[in-house]
């Protein structure tokens, strides 16, 4: 059995309640590392093309990496995988907190669900034993109550819960999977997939140890690395991601006024910035044994949940700048509602901004909404979010995201639906980070900011952007692939991207060697990362989805260029950037299919078949 793994892949058919187990094969672990790497391989092999994302043939996986739950720094991640109902593409969503490590302490590395349960159920993982249980008494409860009830039942100390809220039960396509009451596997709409299967929760209970090649050395290695936190890590330690908010707004990284405005329209960035957020924080907290500890619980406040979590940068901007809303308390309440009902804050903020712009252009009215929608109105954002969460009134229209809402509304509202292939864009503007014009379209998960890109997520000490400027397509493709591949490595092994940026890249190779016993070279890791990224892409091509044909809102590319603000005059030449990327990847410039030679090099030719 591969070290770093508990050695169990659990497969459950919810239609008939059958549970089967298989070991984690050494070569599978070597070639696909773990997490969504192994998840991609298994879903590609097992899922038929054309499966309804909300039907019995979709497979929903909970995956951990070989470093998850080990002494490796920032190793608290797990990733939910499946076919996305928002985009029809490969879908995945990563989360921190404690649940990922506890899934392993309960004896399991991977759990895959197929079929649909006749009645609501939850899965109990209990030190190598797995069982399905009636969840009728939990159905309709929010994520925090669900977490409390199940942890009370199984013992708080050694039990953690991953679950959906009412939004997932009602199959809102913006629904996420929540754990630890405030951590979200937010994107791709996988909470709706969980709801469609009548699966309310997974309960992980246990205190098993992750088998390691050299456990003692792993602990020593951790001690040696802890003091080496860099400036990025210190910023996130002090502020969480809220610490980048003012900077991102003023430099042009954040979307403003549903991507139609600029920092000029939002001069009060400081009102929702790091210092203001921290002034409302009661106590900082971290994910499982995290040295950065970027999370926080908020002080009690008007309309807030009993356990209110610190909003992330994405939340502060999607419910803030994107709606010209500088009322911090309304954003904290927005975050609370999303956490309790199990909604992705990025998509929900985007849906609210879409609704406001539709209202301002008389596509929606007070008769449709029940109240007036205008920019800069925090109370309206909260009221709208409650309707979305409950799928009531106008909320029923918005709960499936902006693409679906615009298709239903028509009347030119498509212009206001800012998405990539159905996934609402996150709060990092390609006009400011041009590589994201490629990542948002070409990664297997459309509109994803937690994937790599040159000039974006490049790790500490791993690589540099050697181009003449950030807009340049010359040499872009090779650098972009290098950056993207290493982010796949971090994600697949269970490492948090904040750790990836906060410690020198060597920590990943060193911990992988000590934990798994296999001394990966950087070239081996890059190849594994590219293999994972390419197979996610092949999943989409098999579905008939060519990313070059994907809907992509031109506002994010400066088409037309803005006339004021930090991105004034900027239009991204995405054709040139994508063209160079396709060349570097050896993917066909029209179909985007990798060449047979590239598939052979990645060891994928047999799996995907020759062209």
């Amino acid at each position, binding site marked *: 059995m591969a070290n770093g793994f508990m050695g169990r892949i659990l497969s459950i058919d919810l239609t008939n309640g059958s549970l089967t187990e298989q070991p984690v094969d050494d070569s599978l672990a070597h070639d696909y590392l773990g997490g969504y790497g192994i998840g991609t391989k298994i879903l590609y092999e097992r899922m038929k093309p054309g499966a309804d994302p909300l039907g019995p043939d979709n497979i929903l996986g909970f995956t951990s990496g070989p470093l998850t739950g080990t002494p490796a720094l920032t190793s608290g991640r797990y990733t939910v995988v499946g076919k996305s109902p928002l985009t029809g593409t490969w879908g995945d969503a990563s989360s921190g907190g404690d649940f990922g490590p506890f899934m392993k302490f309960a004896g399991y590395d991977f759990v895959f669900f197929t079929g649909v349960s006749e009645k609501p159920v939850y899965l109990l993982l209990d030190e190598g034993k797995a069982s399905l249980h009636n969840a009728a008494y939990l159905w309709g409860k929010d994520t925090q109550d669900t977490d409390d009830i199940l942890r009370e039942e199984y013992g708080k100390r050694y039990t953690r819960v991953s679950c959906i809220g009412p939004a997932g039960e009602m199959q809102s396509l913006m629904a996420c999977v929540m754990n630890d009451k405030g951590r979200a596997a937010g994107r791709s709409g996988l909470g709706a997939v969980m709801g469609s299967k009548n699966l309310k929760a997974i309960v992980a209970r246990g205190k098993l140890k992750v088998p390691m090649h050299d456990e003692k050395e792993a602990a020593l290695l951790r001690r040696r690395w802890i003091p080496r936190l860099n400036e990025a890590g210190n910023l996130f330690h002090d502020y969480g991601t809220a610490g980048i908010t003012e*900077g991102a707004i*003023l430099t042009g990284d954040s979307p403003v006024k549903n991507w139609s405005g600029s920092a000029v329209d939002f001069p*009060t960035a400081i009102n929702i910035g790091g210092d203001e957020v921290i002034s409302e924080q009661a106590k900082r907290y971290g994910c499982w044994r995290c040295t950065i500890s970027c999370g926080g619980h908020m002080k009690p406040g008007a309309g807030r949940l009993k356990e209110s979590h610190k909003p992330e940068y994405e939340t502060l901007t999607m419910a803030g700048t994107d709606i010209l809303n500088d009322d911090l308390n309304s954003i904290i309440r927005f975050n609370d509602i999303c956490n309790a009902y199990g909604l992705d804050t990025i998509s929900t903020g985007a849906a609210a901004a879409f609704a406001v712009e539709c209202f301002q252009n008389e596509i929606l009215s007070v008769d449709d909404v029940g109240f007036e929608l205008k920019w800069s109105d925090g109370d309206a954002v909260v009221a709208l979010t409650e309707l979305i969460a409950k799928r009531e009134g106008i909320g029923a229209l918005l709960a499936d995201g902006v693409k679906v809402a615009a298709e239903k509304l028509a009347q030119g509202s498509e212009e206001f639906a800012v998405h990539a292939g159905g996934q609402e864009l996150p709060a990092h503007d390609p006009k400011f980070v041009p590589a994201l014009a490629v990542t948002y379209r070409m990664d297997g998960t459309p509109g994803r900011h937690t994937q790599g890109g040159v000039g974006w997520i490049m790790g500490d000490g791993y690589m540099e952007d050697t181009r003449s400027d950030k807009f340049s397509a010359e040499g872009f493709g090779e650098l972009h692939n290098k950056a993207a591949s290493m982010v796949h490595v971090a994600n697949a092994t269970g490492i948090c991207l904040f750790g990836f940026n906060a410690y020198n890249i060597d920590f990943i190779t060193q911990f992988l060697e000590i934990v798994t016993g296999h001394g990966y070279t950087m070239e081996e890791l890059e190849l594994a990362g590219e293999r994972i990224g390419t197979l996610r892409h092949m999943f989409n091509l098999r579905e008939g989805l060519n990313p070059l044909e994907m809907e992509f809102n031109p506002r994010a590319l400066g088409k037309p260029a803005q006339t004021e603000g930090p991105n004034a005059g900027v239009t991204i030449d995405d054709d040139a950037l994508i063209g160079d990327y396709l060349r570097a990847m050896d993917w066909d410039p029209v179909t985007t299919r990798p060449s047979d030679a590239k598939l052979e090099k990645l060891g994928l030719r047999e799996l995907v078949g020759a062209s």
Partner: protein
Amino acid sequence: MNVIIEPIGPLRRHLEEGHKSATVTLPDGATVTDALSALGVSEDAQWNASIEGQLVYGDAEVSDGDHLLVFSPIEGG
């Protein structure tokens, strides 16, 4: 002339403990870089800065009474 500098995040280490901003006295024609140097920010440091919500660069001239916000260039989140 006097310019108020308010660092956000780690750049606060250039302030006296417990203070949120500092006032520096500069000659006419001084730039943003001059203002930050007066606070003790090294030439190698990376930062972004704004005045009244507008991004300003190192060579921009500052005026008497300007409130200069300085923040980390780190992206992510």
